[in-house]
């Protein structure tokens, strides 16, 4: 029926997925989102500690019902090994952004000062532009970009948010919102599912 209360307004939800490194796995996931009309605000993908497994973090916009449905549909994809719903436990999230800001002899000092206030690193120095690397949560990055905007931003690139469940949830039970125990100290995956489970008592035709 998709009726939700007023408190259930569209907002950003963080969802992580562990997926097999198979051809088109990214296409499968993005096509699923596109087909069913879910909005992805950001998506970042990277390798994990397990060979053959990648981890993705999505920021999905929508009410809770939409996000639940998106997670259930994702779980059905064969190459998706596990879905981690970050609304169930406290998590840490980070985003990295590269910002190239135009500078003049007049603005150079002020730009550097702002960057220092944000604990940003300068990764490229030119006479007419400085490139900064900022890491942090979304609010900090947005604030940094807004501070730099008056000087003239030439380019930016954001990685999108990445997230992990907090290990400290195990020490602080109130950080776990769902029934039951925290999942945080369990390895995200025990191992990649064995490819072949043989059934016996089937005649070999050779």
């Amino acid at each position: 029926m998709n009726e939700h209360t007023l408190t259930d307004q569209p907002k950003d939800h963080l969802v992580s997925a562990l997926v097999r490194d198979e051809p088109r796995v990214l296409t499968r996931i993005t096509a699923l989102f596109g087909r069913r009309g879910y909005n992805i605000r950001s998506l970042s993908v990277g390798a994990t500690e397990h060979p053959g497994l990648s981890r993705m973090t999505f920021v999905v916009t929508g009410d809770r019902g939409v996000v639940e449905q998106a997670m259930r549909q994702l779980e059905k994809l064969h190459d998706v090994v596990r879905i981690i719903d970050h609304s169930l436990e406290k998590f840490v999230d980070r985003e990295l952004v590269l910002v190239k800001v135009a500078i003049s002899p007049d603005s150079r000092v002020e730009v550097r000062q702002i960057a220092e206030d944000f604990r940003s690193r300068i990764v490229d120095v030119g006479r007419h532009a400085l490139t900064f690397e900022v890491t942090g949560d979304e609010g900090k990055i947005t604030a940094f970009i807004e501070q730099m905007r008056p000087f003239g931003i030439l380019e930016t690139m954001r990685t999108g948010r990445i997230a992990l469940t907090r290990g400290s949830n195990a020490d602080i039970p109130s950080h776990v919102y769902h029934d039951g125990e925290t999942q945080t100290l369990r390895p995200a995956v025990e191992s990649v599912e064995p490819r072949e489970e043989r059934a016996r008592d089937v005649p070999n035709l050779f």
Partner: protein
Amino acid sequence: MTHSSGQDADQHGAGQQDPAAGHELDRGSMTGAKALWATLANHGISTVFGYPGGAIMPVYDALTFYPEVRHVLARHEQGAIHAAEGWAKATGEIGVCIATSGPGATNLVTGLADAMLDSVPLLAITGNVARHLMGTDAFQEADITGITLPITKHNYVVREVEELPRVIAEAIRIARSGRPGPVLVDIPKDIQLAAYHGEVAYPHARPEHPAPKPEAIARAKELLLAAKKPVIMAGGGSLDASAEITALARAWDIPVITTLMGLGAFPSSDPLWLGMPGMHGSVAANRAISEADVLLGIGLRFDDRVTGRVNGFAPNAAIIHVELDAAEIGKIVRVGVPVRGDATVAARMLTEGAYKLDLPDWHAQIEEWKTRTVTPTEWSAGFAVKSVVDRLRPDDILSSDVGQHQMLAAQLARFEKPRRWINSGGLGTMGFGFPAAIGAGMAEPGVTSVVIAGDGGFQMTLQELATLKMYDIRNVKICIINNSFLGMVRQWQELFHEKRYSEVWLGDSNPDFVKLAEAYDVPGYRASNAEELPGMIDAWLADPKSALLEIVVPHEHGVFPMVPAGAALYEMIETEPPRKQPTPDLSAEMMAAAEEAKNA
């Protein structure tokens, strides 16, 4: 290729060696293509439907070394995949079809989408161009895995010959496990030809379905105990839980509605059966849903054709939804008690400690609704369909194509057991019925496989008459309900488009179906009125061969009851409204209009 003995052809397929000699057969050196057949044979797959072509030739060559597997040559890849679907729907086992690259593969697309929406376990194998040509727009190259990505449960491109048996075994496991669905495996030609030195794969153990949580079952029972107007709704996911659901309904004394996909999950002879819900559902089913205070849905997905306007669906009911696929729970309707898990286990758990509800008022109300079922008594498509379906024996399989005749068959046929009703429910694929009936008929040569089709849909896959001829299939009985119209579209044009019959008149261009059948050595029969129909049905069914019966019916009958699109189930139109302006001689009128258009 012809066969003198139908029995022989049915069992062994065309041009293959004696399977009794199988273990002594010299299969030559192992290749990817041979590993494919060996893996299929290991999985107990006895029959595949397909059509050869350039990029799948090594597989067809290897087939000659594997007489364990019968290949059925269809006349179009769509026919092959629908036949595989018919096989799967009748048996509950996986259907397999094969096509070549490019156009062969794209011709499977409709069938894959159909199997996806109806949760049919299906393995589609396609050839593709050699790996070094992939991505170069080579001859007959199509990105079939890209094309079918949203309409398969999963799909693969085999990248190395070493992984081929493993991929096939995994594909079969995925297709059959959980909520079934179609899986496509695309095999480049050079991999089919490559020497293979590994082992051949064996079937995976079928993963167990999750068992429902006892808390959920307990809450469901609490609701049922307090119910004053309970109703059970069983869908396609309940076909394999038929016995358990029947026991459950009888133990609690709760009436049962079976959806279009769930027909047969509950015996229709049982007084608790209310028929089918939805757009063309029975009065009793739709009224019961609208009045119910507890609705127990088992193995269904609340399709829009079932619910009507969603906020008017079961407005007074707390819904218990038993479903294997977690994504279906709460997708469309708000669910009070979600029960995720196997329908068989859930039904058994719900039956334990059942309390026979004493609800005489509710049952009396339902009996009153049941009397509002209209049985067609005058010459019409409904009359014709009823005359045919009444002749089915409990084991016979009834397939249908898509349209008015499908809804009439679903309303009028009575099924005592599951998997005797085969139709395209989710996708509504015209052309599905006839090849599906061939697949079902080949799966069960001992029963009669009847297909009811319209004059429009039959012409979409009529080339499969040649398949009947080639394999001398004797148990497929084709019934064409010929109203010279694309009847369902016409009905909507009449109701919602002020009778502007845009591009639905087939009458002047339809073939002579009897002659058409006879061109393929399939005996043809025709009936045009109620007097001659019983005799023709007798002759058609008694014919030792597969046969075609064309029943010529009036042009403009509609299917009722009907819930208009966007309306709630309780807003159904129960009987056909009287026509303000009957069209006396439609054929003449249409022909005059066509003539006029030509001259203009």
